[in-house]
């Protein structure tokens, strides 16, 4: 939040600070549109609506069925040719500033339906601009959270009051540039520990560093 804006003539201190405050508020009150076409939508429901994962912790749980009340479009599920037009309409109905997260292999590249399909689009970015890609088929709820956290960081860093349109190049939430896998694991670790659940990533790291360790990664180790 403390990142100052690129200074130019006429840029005064108060306005810069105000922009920061607004981006901070905006990033923590994302209102996603309830939109899902297929499998990924169920995982999104598990993440956003259900009690276990609880998206409310990250300030993005107010899902809205109407695009006019939403500012975050989570594209969950395959987009086919026939759906492209309605999707574009939905996007254009959303008020500025609006953000798009593409979840799942299908909307990133076509996923399982990339070859031989006469109707599946190969990537939703042909239709609407995307801010964050979350890979997976479908991404786990934690993956979606990571995508939302990434978007929030982007909003805080870049999009200001005066530049709602300014975007930086879209990022993949799995491995954003400049962020190492270790950092992601550390962040996930916190997330898991906060939940008091068994920590898959920690166990996985132990298996990797100590190949002799048995049965650490769930469902893999003991089968060799």
């Amino acid at each position, binding site marked *: 939040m403390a990142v100052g804006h690129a200074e130019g003539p006429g840029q005064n201190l108060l306005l810069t600070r105000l922009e920061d405050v607004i981006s901070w508020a905006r990033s923590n009150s994302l209102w996603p549109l309830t939109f899902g076409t297929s*499998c990924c939508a169920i995982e999104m429901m598990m993440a956003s609506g*259900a009690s276990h994962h609880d998206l409310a912790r990250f300030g993005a749980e107010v899902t809205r069925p109407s695009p006019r009340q939403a500012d975050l479009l989570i594209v969950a599920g395959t987009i086919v040719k026939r759906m492209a037009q309605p999707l574009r309409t939905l996007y254009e109905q959303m008020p500025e500033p609006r953000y798009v997260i593409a979840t799942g292999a299908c909307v990133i590249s076509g996923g399982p339906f990339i070859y031989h399909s006469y109707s599946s689009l190969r990537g939703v970015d042909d239709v609407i601009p995307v801010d964050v890609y979350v890979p997976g088929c479908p991404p786990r709820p934690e993956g979606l959270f990571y995508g939302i956290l990434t978007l929030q960081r982007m909003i805080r860093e870049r999009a200001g009051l005066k530049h709602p349109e300014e975007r930086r190049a879209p990022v993949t939430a799995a491995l954003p540039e400049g962020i190492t896998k270790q950092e992601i694991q550390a962040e996930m670790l916190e997330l898991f520990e906060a939940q008091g659940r068994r920590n898959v990533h920690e166990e996985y790291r132990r298996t990797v560093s100590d190949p002799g360790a048995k049965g650490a990664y769930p469902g893999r180790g*003991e089968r060799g």
Partner: protein
Amino acid sequence: MTPKTLTLQDLLRTDFAPGGGTQEYFVNMGPQHPATHGVLRLLLKLDGETLRQVIPVLGYIHRGIEKICEHQTYRQIVHLSDRLDYLSALANNWCVTRVVERAAGIETNERIETIRTLMAELERLQSHTLWWGVFGMDLGAFTPFLHGFRDREELTQIFEDTIGARLTMNYIQPGGLLHDLHKDFAPRVRAWLKDFGTKVDEYDRMLSGNLIAQKRLVDIGALSGDEALGLGATGPVLRASGVPWDLRRVRPYGVYDQLDFVVPVGEKGDCWDRYWVRIEEMRQSLALCETLIENIPEGKTMLVKPAAKIRLPEGTFYEELETPRGIFGVHLHSRGKDMPWRFHFRSPNLHNLWCITKIAPGARVADIVAMLAGLDLIVPDMDR
């Protein structure tokens, strides 16, 4: 003479006020609508608040899976099948597996069949808990959603331990199972089943007796048994109309022939009966799982080389089984290659959907949400 073809525009141009009565109008529901659970689009022809006609418009998620299947090996098709009806992924896997196994003449052992049956029943529970939660939400009650998803999440984690995926699960393969069971599987399932036994009663107390729910379900969308058969309905929708047609009973597969269970059957075929049949099915599945988890025999879980190419003889093969939503069938037309010549899925949701064209006319516009929720539709399975 070549038969006449129509377009959607032709339908919209029909006579709006037949006989000079009140004027009818169209309302578009979907493809982006929270109650259609995806991208189903319904054109509602209304007269005031009364529905005159419902025209489903499909294709907003038609991915061309049948065409893709013609270019995939049989093992790869198993993986595509769980993207159809993702809430019954394992049942879909099983159906594809069965047709491939029968065509290739692969025999399985008792352990494999028991685990497959157990997984299918657990998934029926998982699917019905989600249905129950969403059903409540569609009627305007948010609490069921939280409860249904809470119980589902536990089960999802149990599946994840063994299968490695949360939703698009791939476990049942031609020749056996992808992995053996996780070492925590049996204790966790036992604990979950014990817990869930009380949850079903809680579900009943929470929603079933609710006066508003009753008012919105009883006598809404009644469908007689003959009509349901003619419309091709299967699964809980058909059974709610009084036809005891359950493939687990009439043509048993897996180890269902050794199991004892009741097929719940409704009377009137209204939304309430569909609700009740599914709640009862949860109880039956619970009892089945409790029996199965104690009786898993020893044995191998994969009987063929997992990477071996499968080449099927020429012919047309068909297998079907009972998923949580009805009869899922697979037609396989092989020409002796390692890829099918034609692969066709018989989708339970597509056939159940047509019931809406029969039960909706005459009802109020608010009832259509209850009817859709009662049919429990999964759109990607309809469109394929």
